[in-house]
């Protein structure tokens, strides 16, 4: 009674405030038994300038969820995937992340692509709320420098791998005097930064660097500028849609047909967009999907479900991001953030039993986990091993376009990549 009088005398709003503060101070009473279904979130730019490449990425995520559920789910529960659009706008993305974490109560989530959106999500949601976030595609090297308190991982190697591998191949083909046209985003500038050092170290010279903004109607001016220094070859860093425009300009203006590309261009959209007869012997890099049954299984499954090939930026890494989340959630002793975080690295334990992609392999993995045995996940991109920062390093592959088809030229294994890195950085 006295408490009530006290409270009413102090005013209703302060009462409310007090109540909320009390709730905040209560240690979170997580349900001891896993509530079914287990919710997992996803944030991707389904609309906005990234939209052309996001469709397949979303399909990869959905395929992964399907495989997970067919293979037994998480701790015996089916997994429900809740996908939100960040529209390429940070405020929208952060709001979506907060909603997923607080209201939908997702135990982990994947996303997103643009660093401008991933950054604030890490800063405002992931780290404070202690929820694991695994990105398929956000390559800004700054994110894994510790600010995420260890809750952010990515299945995409930073552009360092690609950049060094590209430089190595460019050098091998004797392309010394190079012009670079790159997209003016975190991805482009990051990759160029790594590339510059490597190219120079391997004896080449970058004659001119031209940044381009995406979504322009014409790139004539950029191409003219790049050609002005009379380079013998071109390195193009960007995304397929605008890349098609740029390359067509380049060829129209008589630019040399020696062109190096980054991984986004490894898609028939690019080949057909420019025209197969014009892109003969163009080459590029990608993070290796080491040839092997697990990668093939993924490619086949993707083709079967969506009736389109699985080539394209982010597709394989997104599948792996979701699979890693699901595996980690099974390994973790409970579904709290810190437990899942700790479990992510145990998805790939040295000496563990290899498990691959697809529902059957997932089922196998769960059985091993239940028996307390370590596993070693080989995903759609190859072996997934997170370093101390939450990055994966990986082998790279060189692909080229021959006869209108994209074929793998050679692979640069992990040890070779590490040697290359040492060579460049010494």
């Amino acid at each position, binding site marked *: 009674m006295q408490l009530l009088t006290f409270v009413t005398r102090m005013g209703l709003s302060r009462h409310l405030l007090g109540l909320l503060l009390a709730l905040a101070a209560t240690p979170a009473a997580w349900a001891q038994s896993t509530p079914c279904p287990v919710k997992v979130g996803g944030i991707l730019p389904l609309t906005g300038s990234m939209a052309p490449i996001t469709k397949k990425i979303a399909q990869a995520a959905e395929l992964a969820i399907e495989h997970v559920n067919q293979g037994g789910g998480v701790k015996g529960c089916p997994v429900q995937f809740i996908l939100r*659009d960040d529209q390429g*706008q940070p405020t929208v993305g952060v709001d979506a992340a907060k909603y997923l974490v607080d*209201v939908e109560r997702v135990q982990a989530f994947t996303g997103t692509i643009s660093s*401008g959106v991933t950054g*604030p999500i890490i800063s405002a949601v992931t780290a404070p709320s202690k929820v694991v976030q695994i990105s398929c595609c956000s390559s800004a090297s700054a994110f894994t420098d510790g600010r995420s308190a260890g809750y952010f991982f990515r299945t995409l190697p930073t552009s360092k791998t690609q950049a060094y591998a590209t430089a190595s191949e460019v050098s091998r083909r004797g392309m010394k005097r190079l012009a670079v046209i790159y997209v*003016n*985003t975190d991805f482009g500038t990051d990759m160029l930064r790594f590339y510059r050092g490597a190219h120079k170290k391997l004896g080449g010279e970058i004659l001119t660097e031209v940044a381009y903004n995406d979504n322009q109607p014409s790139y004539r001016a950029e191409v003219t500028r790049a050609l002005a220094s009379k380079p013998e070859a071109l390195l193009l860093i960007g995304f397929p849609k605008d890349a098609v425009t740029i390359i067509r300009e380049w060829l129209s203006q008589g630019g040399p047909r020696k062109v190096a590309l980054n991984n986004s261009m490894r898609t028939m959209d690019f080949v057909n967009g420019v025209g197969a007869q014009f892109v003969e012997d163009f080459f590029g890099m990608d993070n290796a999907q080491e040839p092997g049954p697990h990668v093939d299984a993924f490619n086949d499954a993707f083709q079967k479900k969506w009736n389109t090939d699985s080539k394209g930026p982010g597709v394989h890494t997104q599948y792996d991001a979701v699979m890693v989340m699901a595996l980690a959630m099974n390994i973790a002793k409970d579904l709290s953030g810190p437990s899942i975080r700790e479990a992510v690295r145990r998805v790939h334990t040295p000496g563990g039993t290899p498990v691959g992609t697809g529902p059957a392999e997932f089922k196998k993995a769960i059985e091993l986990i239940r028996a307390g045995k370590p596993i070693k996940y080989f995903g759609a991109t190859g072996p997934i091993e997170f370093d101390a920062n939450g990055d994966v390093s990986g082998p790279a592959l060189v692909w080229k376009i021959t006869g209108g088809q994209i074929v793998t030229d050679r692979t640069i294994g992990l040890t070779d990549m590490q040697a290359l890195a040492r060579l460049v950085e010494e």
Partner: protein
Amino acid sequence: MGLASYLVFFACVVLVLCILTMGLNLQWGFTGLFNAGVAGFYAIGGYTHAILTAAPSPQLMGNYGLPWLVGIIAAMLVTAVAALVVGLITIRLRGDYLAIATFGIGIMIQLVSLNLESWTGGSQGITRIPKPLSTWFEGSLAYNLFYLVFMVVVVVLVYWALERILSSPWGRVLRAIREDEMAASSLGKSPLSYRLQSFVLGSTLMGLAGALYVTFIGFVSPFDFLPILTFQVWAMLIVGGSGNNRGAMLGALVVWSIWAASGVAVSKWVPPSHAAQGAAIQVILIGLTLVLMLLFKPRGLLGERAVVSRHLVY
């Protein structure tokens, strides 16, 4: 409770948007200035604060790690100066030309933030922006609650200050100029000077909002300031009712709620494989809502309190 935690967060964002919208309201609702470069002034405030207060980083020239309050005040000052410069260039322009010019300026500011990498971090942005009094609170919900209370105080202060200014002689002259410029100038009041003052004051509020937002999120990048933001703030003002500060705040709440809620709706009712089309429908619905609003309730939800004639002479 999860929902409470989300709502606290949501409310903080809405309160920042309230300040933005009230700044715009001063410029458009009370002075008739079509500022289509809202995102630019928001950006100047946000980046100034970030550059001054963020923890040092080897790649960036700025990041001085100064106290939070210094950042806020500097953000407002720098935005005011920028608004003065922009105002001097554009204030003479007639309505829609002013819109185009300020739109372009907003875009240029965004491009500068994207290209001036050594200061702004370029597309990677600036991170590790400190939150004031963060060590006093345990856990993110507790801190967000504190920030919510803090934001409520700030918004109330801003609202009160604006209302005082607008009912002062200065404010009355402003409205007189908006309604009938010739009459006002024949009374010896210089319309251009008043408009400029209003423009600068409104933009300063936008800069403040930028600094407060950046503090709350802890990260800033050029992608926070794309033209769509300007569109959103304008929608808030028009829906809520321009010429009315309470309308401005209501508009901020309503529009941002629609934006967030429609995202939730799409994620619940549209299967992931069609999410892209669902998202397109979301934008279409938002656009339609606005156009319909304009057609049927042009004064907004809380139209302006009629003080003088409502004919906007152009």
